[in-house]
């Protein structure tokens, strides 16, 4: 099937630095795709090039197979949910949602607006102004305003980062549910690995303007292709050149046999984190290693001599 959005070797160079360097990717219709990376990695610039706010220095952007990289934002059937939502403060919720519809939908406006406001659970708040809404509600207005246009791709620029942490998880679930219902392709930009892992069908990890790896959350987490990807998606212990995630390691008082890797270590301290316990240890060569263990299992005292072991299959290997 033809990808709905395709980036071919897209670069954005500024006089001072190269924000995006040769990014190529394609999004399947209806897919939830995330671009994940630290701030300054080029993910937002990539999104802005798809939206039309920035023009690529080189490369091509294709929407439904036609080149759009030179089109103005108002000529592209993509829509953006901005990080600060960018709601029009002088307009009501209804007028914000209708903003993009005016010229297009004719007399179906009312039905479409009502439908989308039901979808994001804002029915009854049509005549409020943005200033009279909570952060979560504003975020849903921004979402509704874009969804009502039925864009080919919905672009989301860290839409959850302005919400407080408790709300964020709830909105995350809602967002995923909405995306499933409307079936619109989402291109979601975030620096939060948990968000990217939990929401995405596939994700791409960016670093210093380059796309380091693209894959499903499982592939990326379990088989990162670079050290950067491995460390950005979670903690990694580097032991003799291979990486092992803390939750893949076990602590035992005896060295393990039957094919497990095993290293002697000393307990430094244990930290109770509620759902699990993090144990800081020091390997015999002096390197630190963190092990995540169940709070229901054995406990270890600082200074105790133990053995760390893990399955060879859990080792992260890089060329």
């Amino acid at each position: 099937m033809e990808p709905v959005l395709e980036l071919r070797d897209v670069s954005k160079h500024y006089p001072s630095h190269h924000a995006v360097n040769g990014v190529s990717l394609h999004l399947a219709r209806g897919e939830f795709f995330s671009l994940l990376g630290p701030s300054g990695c080029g993910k937002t610039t990539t999104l802005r090039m798809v939206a039309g706010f920035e023009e690529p220095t080189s490369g091509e952007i294709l929407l439904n197979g036609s080149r759009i990289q030179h089109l103005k934002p108002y000529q592209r059937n993509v829509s953006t949910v901005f990080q600060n939502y960018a709601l029009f403060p002088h307009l009501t919720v209804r007028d914000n949602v209708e903003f993009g519809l005016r010229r297009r939908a004719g007399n179906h406006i009312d039905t479409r607006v009502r439908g989308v406001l039901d979808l994001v659970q804002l029915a009854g708040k049509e005549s409020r102004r943005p200033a009279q809404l909570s952060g979560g509600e504003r975020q849903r207005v921004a979402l509704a305003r874009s969804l009502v246009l039925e864009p080919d791709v919905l672009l989301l620029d860290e839409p959850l980062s302005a919400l407080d942490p408790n709300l964020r998880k709830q909105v995350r679930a809602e967002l995923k549910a909405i995306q499933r219902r409307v079936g619109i392709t989402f291109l979601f930009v975030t620096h939060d690995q948990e968000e990217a892992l939990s929401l995405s069908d596939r994700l791409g990890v960016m670093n210093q303007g380059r796309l380091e790896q693209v894959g499903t959350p499982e592939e990326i987490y379990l088989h990162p292709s670079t050290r950067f990807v491995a460390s950005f998606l979670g903690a990694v212990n580097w032991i003799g050149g291979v990486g092992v995630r803390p939750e893949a390691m076990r602590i035992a008082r005896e060295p393990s046999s039957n094919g497990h890797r095993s290293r002697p270590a000393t307990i430094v301290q244990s930290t109770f984190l509620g759902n699990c316990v993090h144990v800081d240890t020091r390997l015999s060569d002096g390197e630190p290693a963190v092990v995540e263990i169940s709070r229901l299992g054995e406990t270890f005292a600082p200074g105790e001599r133990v053995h760390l072991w893990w399955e060879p299959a859990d080792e992260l290997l890089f060329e």
Partner: protein
Amino acid sequence: MNRLRAWFLAPTWTVVVVLFLAPLAIILGYSFLTRGVYGGITSPWTAESYGRLVDPIYLAILWRSFWIAGASTALCLILGFPLALFISRAGPRKNFYLGLVMLPFWTSFLVRTYAWMFLLRDTGLLNTALQKLGWIHAPLPLLYNDGAVILGLVYGYLPFTVLPLYATLERLDRTLLEAAADLGAKPWATLARVTIPLSAPGIRAGAILVFIPCLGAYLTPDLLGGGKSVMIGNLIQNQFTTARDWPFGAAVSLALMAIVMLLLFAIARGEGESLL
């Protein structure tokens, strides 16, 4: 603490009371007295001057002042808005352009108005140049009409619209403009549906800052209107000088003040917020 505050405010209070409230009280007193034969005022107390305000001659002058001030304000906004928009997006050169806007203030308003006379009069720069070029054969009547007055007022008060407009436009959240484009609005639609509505406070402030001084303008209509284009300011000046009717001059002054205050009050009520 309160004592200290009282001392800090003392100079302001002195200025307000001695230089504003006291003269205002004197004007109020004059307006209810009878005119002296050679100017000045004399008894008895009377409200006759206020009665004369509704004379059609004076109502015509009031009407003329309103439309000249209104036209000048509208032109200032039409010319000032694009300029303010341009400066607000000029990046590092903002301050340079703002400096240019304020540059005319370095010269006295009187001198600058005289300069317009030299440009516009029959033997002035403009008419001479056009005749030399052979484009016209007789000088154009550029001076001593309403058009010249409006030109002078727009020229003089344009910076007062540009500055408040600049202040609002500069603070305008750029992502709102991106959002409008993103939702399919072309540049002109974004201007009409986002930029202009959101700069309403600046437009209001700019309009007030121009309309009120224009309404009471005296120097510009006197020099560029040449006595043909009389506005309220000239009427007041005339009453205190040639006409030697101080009570009526005082009554017109107070009437002008009352009109301005009512206007401000109406605008403030209309916006549902305090204005000044």
